């Protein structure tokens, strides 16, 4: 995306630094923090001057989207995509077809990936641990698709609103997390994974 911006708008967006968020891979240098797939996209939106609502909408989408989509496999099947080194063997791993889809309900690499691994245990048993990289590369794919769509909509004049989360909003205004703990809670992330009773990102965790 940054490359395309540099090509199309060299004197403005072309000044955005490529690779500035490479460190976010694997949740900040593989530490499992914020997933780099959305974090780097959000950083780009911020650098471009995108409305806060748009950045929030991107984050909310990541939390609630069922990923990975099967888009990468369908792209491969289309037959008009030849990556450097070709497909298979020592080249580009062929995307798996119909990998399990899971809503991360978190913005963290650790939480989202672990939740997917738990849900996809049968898939992993069949395809091996390389299926994890397959999943994460597809999540990046999905995030770029969403990012490009949002940028194009924004720049073509389509208003982007923050959809919010009704459950979270209720918790913030019900007198619960609006005032407890003292000062109330910050932000509006999903209730997971802190509250495993809601649905349970990782059973046994949370309150």
């Amino acid at each position, binding site marked *: *995306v940054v*490359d*395309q*911006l540099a090509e*199309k*708008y060299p004197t*403005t*967006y072309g*000044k*955005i*630094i*490529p*690779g500035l*968020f*490479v*460190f*976010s*891979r*694997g949740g900040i240098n593989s530490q499992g923090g914020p*997933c*780099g*797939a959305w*974090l*780097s996209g959000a950083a780009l939106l911020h*650098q*471009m*001057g*995108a*409305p806060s609502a748009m950045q929030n909408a991107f984050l909310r989408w990541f939390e609630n989207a069922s990923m990975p989509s099967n*888009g*990468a496999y369908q*792209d491969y099947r289309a037959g008009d*995509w030849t*990556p*450097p*080194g070709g497909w298979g063997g020592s*080249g*580009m*791993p062929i*995307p798996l077809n119909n990998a399990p889809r899971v809503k991360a309900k978190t913005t963290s690499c650790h939480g989202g990936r672990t939740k997917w691994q738990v849900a996809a245990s049968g898939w992993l048993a069949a395809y091996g641990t390389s299926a994890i*990289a397959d999943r*994460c*590369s*597809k999540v*990046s*794919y999905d*995030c*770029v*698709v969403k*990012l*490009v*769509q949002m*940028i*194009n909509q924004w*720049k*073509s*004049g389509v208003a982007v609103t923050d959809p919010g989360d009704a459950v979270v909003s209720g918790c913030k205004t019900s007198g619960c997390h609006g005032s407890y703990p003292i000062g109330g809670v910050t932000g509006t992330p999903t209730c997971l994974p802190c509250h495993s009773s809601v649905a349970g990102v990782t059973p046994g965790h949370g309150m």
Partner: protein
Amino acid sequence: MLHESLTRRQFIGGTAAVAGAAAMPTLASLAPAVAAPDPALPVFPRDAGTPNWTPLDERRARRYCVEMYRDRHNTTVGGGG
């Protein structure tokens, strides 16, 4: 770690000296100036519109993204992030 190189007294003393020097006009003027923001760094106005926007190519972006993730390109310009 603080205790590995400086005692607490040395640290506080040093901090006070720096603060004191900053408060003295003559010394402060000799201190190196704080670098101004690099004008080359991207700073775009909030909510900036772009007339005659040329849409980004979604297909190209998504494929390149996966290739970066799978290290088919130089990972210094991409990756999961």
